[in-house]
Structures are given as structure tokens and as C-alpha cells.
């Protein structure tokens, strides 16, 4: 069994194990074991990848495997990873692992909950390892649909509305995407060679520019919906606010990265000419995402809404950086994906834990809760500081790289866009500090909060894992950014012909 397919097989085996569980204690044990093994497997993949690179393997994708699937259409199950996908696989592994511990208290239909959650994660893993557009699309859709049930059944608030809105908007995106993928497929043949869905093969072919002008927006918007591209981001605040803790974690932490990764790996990598031509439209849109998300977060009082809007802002920054189309900005975009994934997962996990105790998510109803929950509060502050880009934590590394990359463009348009995007950092600082000040500091007036307890063991596992990852990435960013940077070479070759 090869290294990468195991990343799908472990979740599937876990799901099969879950089906046979009798009570929800067994369910939790099976889910936690399965996802711990999965996390170890992810770490092993990273180490194996680094070893292989160190040994001098210069191939674009490592651990490649191709199996023919639908022969007549040349659809293959083909897998492989480079530094970018490995980084995101590691992120997914950490988030799903912590997600299981963060949802330790789910009792209503626990078995179904964990099955849907792990099914979702298997879709994400499959997406990141695929090199074939068809399989990629298949895994993408597998990742989207369990979300409906997860939010609809275990969510809170206007959950049915949010679940429906989220599912339909994301499926609308994937509908556009499907058109784009089919278009790419039918133009993937160069000089009589068979049509192919394989990304690496298609990259060698240059798709006619007239087709690119139609297919690029389809694909970019298709993935952009998932990456919270303005004005298609409206599913995100409602969806995240209504979703149960682990689902918000996974959704904001990982699924939204699927959008960014898809925009990068499919839309831009395969159609660089159109990407270059149309970048200005999307730079405007993502610029709006960045600022609008940050301003939206200031206006909110509900913790989940604050973080949902802040996700719109941060994910907008990912797409923004990608559209800058130079090596530094690309590197920053991927770093931002990982960093935001970890931060967001930490935030949503902590919000879930705090809400479980205080029964409210309104920041004006909480005050001084650091006195009763020092552990959770400190973790929250660390997450907040990472989010506003404090040096030493992950956010700084990512945002710094992005802005350095973006500023390399000498022309006025890019400069202004960059300056506006940088302004979002200030706004972020405002809402983070205000939130932290309101909730954690000051006297503890509310008597109901007096008897609340701090984190218990499973919550500590989840938060500590995430805090360590955030701090680790902030303190020692080099190995990660090197790993990503080394893989950007072939991608930059695609764009090199555009250089003046």
C-alpha cells in the first residue's frame, strides 16, 4: 500500500469501525484512535517527503502513482505531492485530530456525527493528494456534502437556513467548476495526444487563450466561492456561526483552503495567460474581501461571527497573494493558508469550549472570564495575537511574506491594492484587542460565571496541539517556507513566459 493512498484508507477504515460501535464511548475511542493514526501518518508523509528531497529527488511531484480508472476517457486515479500539498496535508491532519477532541461532548447521534466528520476529512485528504482533475473534483464534492448534515443536525441557531445556504452556494461554485474542468479536459490534447485529466500533463499544453478567457473565471470563481471570494462569501458567516465546533474548525481551517489551493493549482497553474489578463478584476474583489471582512468583524458581537468575518478577511488575503503572481507572494499565500488554518481551528475550538460553559457567545455579556478560565483565556489571547500578526507566531511570518511579495510589483495599481490590504492589519488589531479586552479582562461581575471550571483533559489536548503548532510555525518558519519554496519552481516556470 502506498504512502498517500493510506491517507484515504485510514479515514475509511475508521468510518467502517465506527459503524460497528455500540455506544458513544466506543465511538469516541475509535474516532480518536483513527485520527491519531492519521496524524502520525501525515507527519510521516512530511518526513518522508523531506528525506526524499534531501536525497536529491528533483521530481515535481513525489510518491507519484497512476492507476487507470475510466479507460475510455483516460481518467486515472493519480496521486502525488509537492511541498505545497504536503504542508496542507499536515494542516488537515492536525485540525481533524484536534477537531475530534474538541467535539468530545457530542452525545446526540454521536456515531453519525463522527462518521460525517471523518468522511468530510477523507474528502479533503483525497483532494490534496490528487493530480487528476476528475478524482480531485470527486473528492471535492465528497468534502462538501456531509457539511449539510453536520450543520443541519448538530448546529445551533438558524441551522437549517445556514446549512442550506452553505450547501447550495458551494454546490453552485462546484457547478461552475465542473464546466471549467470539462472545458480544460477537452482542450488538454496537444497535437493529437489523447485527452487527459492529469494536471501535470495539462500544464505542458497551452490552452487557447479564447477558451481560457471563458474557463479561467469559471474555475477561479468555482473554487473562489469556497475560498470566500467577495461577493460569494455570504455562506461563510452564517455557516460558521451555525455549525458545531468541530465543523467550524474543519470548515474554516481546512475546507476554505481547498478553495485557495484549487484556485492556485488548477485555475492559475493551468491557465496562466488568462490569470495574468484577468488578475486585476480578482485583485479588486479579493481586496474588498480583505477590508470588508475585517470591517465586518469589528461590527459583530457574536464571537463566531467575528471569527467568520475575520476568516473572510484572511482567506481573501490568500487569494490576494496568489493573484500577485510572484514567488514570494505565492509562498506567503501558502504560509497564510497553513497559519490561518491553525489559528482559525484554535479560535473555533476555544469558542466552542467557552460557549459550552457560559452559554453565550456575545462578547458584551462576558467580562473577566480569565479569572475562572485562565487556561482557555491564555490560549485565546495567543490565537488573537497570531491573528493580528505578532512576530514569533505564525501569522506574522505569513503576512510579512505576502506583503513583501505584493510590494515587488512596481506599478501603481498593485502598490495601492497592497497598501489597502495592509491596512486590514490595523483593523484586525482593533477587533482582536477589543474582543480580548472585553471578554477576559476586568472584574468578574456576573455571578453565574463564578463557578465555571477551566479546560479538562480532552480540551487541553486539542488546544495545546494547536498552540504548539502556531508557535512552532512562528518560531521556526524556515523549514516550512523552504519546503514550499522548493516546490514553486515548476509553477513559476508556467508564469515565466509572462515576464516582460
Amino acid at each position, binding site marked *: 500500500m502506498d504512502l498517500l493512498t493510506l491517507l484515504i484508507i485510514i479515514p475509511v477504515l475508521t468510518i467502517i469501525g465506527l459503524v460497528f460501535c455500540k455506544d458513544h464511548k466506543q465511538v469516541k475511542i475509535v474516532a480518536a484512535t483513527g485520527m491519531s493514526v492519521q496524524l502520525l501518518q501525515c507527519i510521516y508523509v512530511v518526513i518522508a517527503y523531506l528525506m526524499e528531497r534531501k536525497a536529491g529527488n528533483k521530481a515535481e511531484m513525489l510518491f507519484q502513482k497512476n492507476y487507470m480508472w475510466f479507460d*475510455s476517457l483516460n481518467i486515472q486515479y493519480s496521486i502525488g505531492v509537492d511541498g505545497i500539498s504536503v504542508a496542507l496535508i499536515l494542516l488537515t491532519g492536525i485540525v481533524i485530530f484536534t477537531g475530534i477532541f474538541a467535539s468530545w461532548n457530542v452525545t446526540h447521534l454521536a456515531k453519525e456525527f463522527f462518521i460525517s466528520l471523518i468522511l468530510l476529512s477523507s474528502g479533503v485528504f483525497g483532494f490534496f493528494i490528487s493530480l487528476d482533475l476528475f478524482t480531485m473534483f470527486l473528492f471535492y464534492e465528497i468534502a462538501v456534502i456531509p457539511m449539510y448534515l453536520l450543520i*443541519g443536525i448538530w448546529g445551533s441557531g438558524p441551522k437549517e437556513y445556514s446549512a442550506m445556504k452553505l450547501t*447550495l452556494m458551494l*454546490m453552485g461554485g462546484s457547478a461552475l467548476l465542473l464546466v471549467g474542468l*470539462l472545458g480544460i479536459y477537452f482542450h488538454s490534447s496537444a497535437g493529437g495526444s489523447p485527452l487527459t485529466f492529469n494536471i501535470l500533463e495539462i500544464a505542458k499544453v497551452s490552452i487557447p487563450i479564447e477558451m481560457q478567457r471563458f474557463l479561467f473565471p469559471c474555475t477561479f470563481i468555482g473554487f473562489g466561492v469556497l475560498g470566500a471570494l467577495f461577493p460569494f462569501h455570504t455562506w461563510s458567516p452564517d455557516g460558521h456561526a451555525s455549525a458545531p465546533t468541530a465543523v467550524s474548525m474543519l470548515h474554516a481551517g481546512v475546507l476554505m483552503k481547498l478553495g485557495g489551493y484549487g484556485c492556485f493549482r488548477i485555475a492559475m497553474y493551468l491557465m496562466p495567460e488568462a490569470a495574468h489578463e484577468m488578475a486585476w478584476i480578482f485583485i479588486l474583489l479579493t481586496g474588498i474581501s480583505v477590508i470588508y471582512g475585517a470591517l465586518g468583524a469589528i461590527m459583530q458581537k457574536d464571537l463566531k461571527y467575528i471569527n467568520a468575518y475575520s476568516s473572510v478577511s484572511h482567506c481573501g488575503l490568500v487569494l490576494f497573494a496568489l493573484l500577485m503572481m510572484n514567488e514570494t507572494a505565492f509562498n506567503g499565500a501558502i504560509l497564510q493558508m497553513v497559519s490561518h488554518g491553525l489559528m482559525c481551528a484554535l479560535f473555533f475550538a476555544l469558542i466552542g469550549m467557552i460557549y459550552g460553559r457560559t452559554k453565550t457567545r456575545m462578547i458584551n455579556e462576558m467580562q473577566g472570564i480569565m479569572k475562572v478560565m485562565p487556561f482557555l483565556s491564555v490560549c485565546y489571547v495567543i490565537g488573537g495575537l497570531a491573528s493580528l500578526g505578532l512576530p514569533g507566531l505564525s501569522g506574522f511570518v505569513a503576512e510579512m511574506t505576502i506583503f513583501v511579495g505584493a510590494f515587488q510589483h512596481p506599478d501603481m495599481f498593485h502598490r495601492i491594492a497592497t497598501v489597502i490590504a495592509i491596512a486590514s492589519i490595523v483593523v484586525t488589531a482593533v477587533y482582536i484587542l477589543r474582543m480580548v479586552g472585553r471578554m477576559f479582562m476586568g472584574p468578574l461581575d456576573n455571578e453565574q460565571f463564578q463557578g465555571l471550571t477551566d479546560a479538562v483533559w480532552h480540551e487541553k489536548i486539542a488546544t495545546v496541539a494547536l498552540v504548539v503548532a502556531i508557535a512552532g510555525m512562528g518560531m521556526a518558519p524556515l523549514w516550512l517556507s523552504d519546503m514550499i519554496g522548493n516546490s514553486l519552481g515548476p509553477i513559476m516556470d508556467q508564469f515565466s513566459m509572462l515576464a516582460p
Partner: protein
Amino acid sequence: MNIESFLIMRHELMLTLAAVLMLIAELSFGKSEKSRIIPLAIFIFGAVTAVGFLPAPTGSLFGGMYQTSALIILMKNILNLGVFIVCLQSASWLKLPVNQDKGSEYFLLMISTLIGMNFMISAGDFLMFYLGLELATIPLTALAAYETYKMKSAESGIKLILSASLSSGITLFGISMIYGTTGSIYFNEVAPLITGDNLQVLGFLFFFTGLAFKISIVPFHLWTADVYEGAPVNITSYLSVVSKAAALFILIILMFTVFNALEVVATKVVYVTAILTMTVGNLFAIRQQNLKRFLAFSSIAQAGFIFLGVIGGPGLGITSVIYFILIYVFSNLGAFGVIAVISGKTGKENIPDYNGLYLTNPKLSLVMMLSLFSLAGIPPVAGFFGKFFLFAAAAQQGYYILVLIAVANAVISLYYYLLVVKAMFINKSEQPIEPIHSDGFARVGMVLCVLGMVVIGFASIIFDYIETLSRQL
């Protein structure tokens, strides 16, 4: 002509034999043990279905009136499978006291319509085609009106026979024009003489309209919802799956053989009707509360999606149509199977009645959910693969706008399928449907459907097999 050449007609002969066996068996059962015909009939039919998959000789008979090929045999097998699942699902309904002494009639009628359909797709000339069409339709009307004690059932029978006779009249009119311009009714003689003059185009349009009634293509769909609602559940599923599939099969066969020269006209017609059918079917489905009407409109929309494959032309187009129909048989019958069980035990068939179904009947809800996801085209169930290839077929011809409209419709359809999923899994109910024990036959039927939905998608060998066969058309 020798005896062995009759083996070319093996499917039809086996079915006729089964019908005769059923008649004899009925005579031998006493008045009180009439319901013993049910397991026997299902067993016989299962055997017929299984034998159908054995390799069979191909060729033509009766001077070219009857023809068969590996592709046509595959189509017949798909129909057989569909009917077999319908039979399994009707067992418990036939055991009801009101239907008890009519069991053999039910199976006889069903087998005769199936024989008609088989002759229809195997036709080598328009005469045989028309005979098959009528043989398929008339017993079907009797089946729709089967619950003689229900007004709605009788109404549905009348509506079906009226619209069916109108549609076959139109078809005949079209055929007469083709005959008038070519002087032949044999497909292989007509084909080279089709030059695209006006009368032939008109003839094709009438012919197409007649079949469009059967497939319930918008704007010829108006009978569908009423008939589906009034007929017994199992007949509704038969109408929406088997009868529709048969009409689609003969349509694609004729479009790419006899009417191949009219491609320009045919493409325009299919293009417009595909858009109309998907959109109208979807928009009406959103408003439905009765599950049978709901699935009626959803099946109209599905026919619109199938037309994307028809427009995709020979090769990938035909392959994707047949592949999708194969998947559609399992998906739609899965959904109808659940409805049949629940409406048989409780008489409830409205969506709000299904509130909270998962808590009381988890297995039925899961089967329903898988079927609906398959209809909506959500992986990992097979519907995803089916729809993907249909869209790919249309995209291959460069109809990207059509594909865009289709995918937008797929999202709309997802909305109403999710409404049912929401009722079962999310909504709470004061009086949920009690836990239901379905009988063994219905269970076997559902297991078959689920297996079909799970396996057909991933087993690429099936798609590739259909692809090799459809190249021979």
C-alpha cells in the same frame, strides 16, 4: 430459418414462457392460496433476468423486421433488472387482501408490457416498432388503473390511455410521412433515403413528439404528475423508470441510425427541449408535497439531463445515456422502494410525514438518502459519475452554455432533494412514522438498489463495457 435462429429472440421468448408458466401456475393454485403466485413469479422472473445476462447470439430475423445486437441485449437486460426490482417491491402490496386474488394478472400485465418494450427496441422497421410500442402501452394502462377500488387510480388509467393514444397517433402520423417520402418502413432502407427535405423533417418532428410523450419531455409532460400520483406506487416507479428508459433507448437508436442525416434539426430540437425539460421539471418539483408527484417532476428533470447525453452524439453521448439510465434505474427504484414500503404500511406519502424518520427507521432513511443523492449527482454514489459523463458528452460537442444551464439546474435539484433529506434527518416530529418491518422481498430489492448505486460508479469496467458496445451502433 432454423430453430436455433429463434435464440436470437431469446429475451422475448423467455418472457413469453414466463407468462405462460404463470398462467398454468395460477390454475393449479386453489382460491385461498392465490398469493402463493407471488414468490413463484418473482423466482421465475429472477431466473429470466439472470439468464438474460448469458451470452446470446445476435442478428436479425423475419426479413429484417427484428434485429438485435450486443448493445440492444444490454438495454433489455437493464429493463429486466428494473422490472425485477419493481416486482420485488410490489410483493407486500400484492399480499394486501384487496389485491390478493389479482396477483397473476399483475405479473402477466407487467411481463406483457416488458415484451412490448423488448420488441420496440429490437425493431428493424417502423411496423415492429409500432407494435411493440402499443403492446408496451396498453397493459400499462390496465396496471395504472389496477386499484379499481380507488377513484384516483381509475382516473390515472384513463389519463394514461388518452395521452398514450394521442401520442401514438402522432407517432404514426410522423411514420406515415417518412414512409411517404422514402417508400419503405425498414430502418436500413429508410436511412440512406433521408435527405432532409421538409416533409421528412416534419415526419421526424412528429415521430419525436410521440416519443417525447412517453419520456415526458416538456411541453409534452402534462399527463405525468397526475398519472404518477394516481397510479399505485409500484406502477409509478415502473412508469418513471422502465417505460421511460425503453422509450429513451429506442430514441437514441433511431436518432443515430435512421435519422442521422437530420442531425442539424435534431440537435436544435433536443437542445431546446433539454433546457425546457430540466428547468420546468425542477421548478415544479420544488413546490410538491406529495412524494410521488415530487419524484414525477424530478424524473422529468432527469430526462432533461439525459438529453445532454443525447446531444453529445454517438460515442460518448450514447455511452453516457445508457450508463446514466442504468444508474437511474437503481437510484429511482431505491427511492420508490422506500416510498412503497412506507405508504404500504401507513398510507403516508407526503414529505412532512417523513419528519424525524431517521430516528425511527434509520435504514429506510439511509436508503432514501443515498437514492436522492444519487439522483442529485452527489458522490460517492453512482449518480455523480452518470451526470458527470452526461455533461462531458455535451461539453465535448462544445455546448458549454447548455452545460452551464444544466449544472445550474443540478443545483436547483439538489435543493429539493435536500428538502426531503432535511425532513428525514433534521426535522423533529410529534408523531414520527413507527418503526416499520419491511418484508424480505422489499429488502432484497433495496439491497440491490444500494449495491447498484455504490458499485456502478466505481466499477469503471461497466462504463468501458458500454463504451465498447455503443461504438458498434
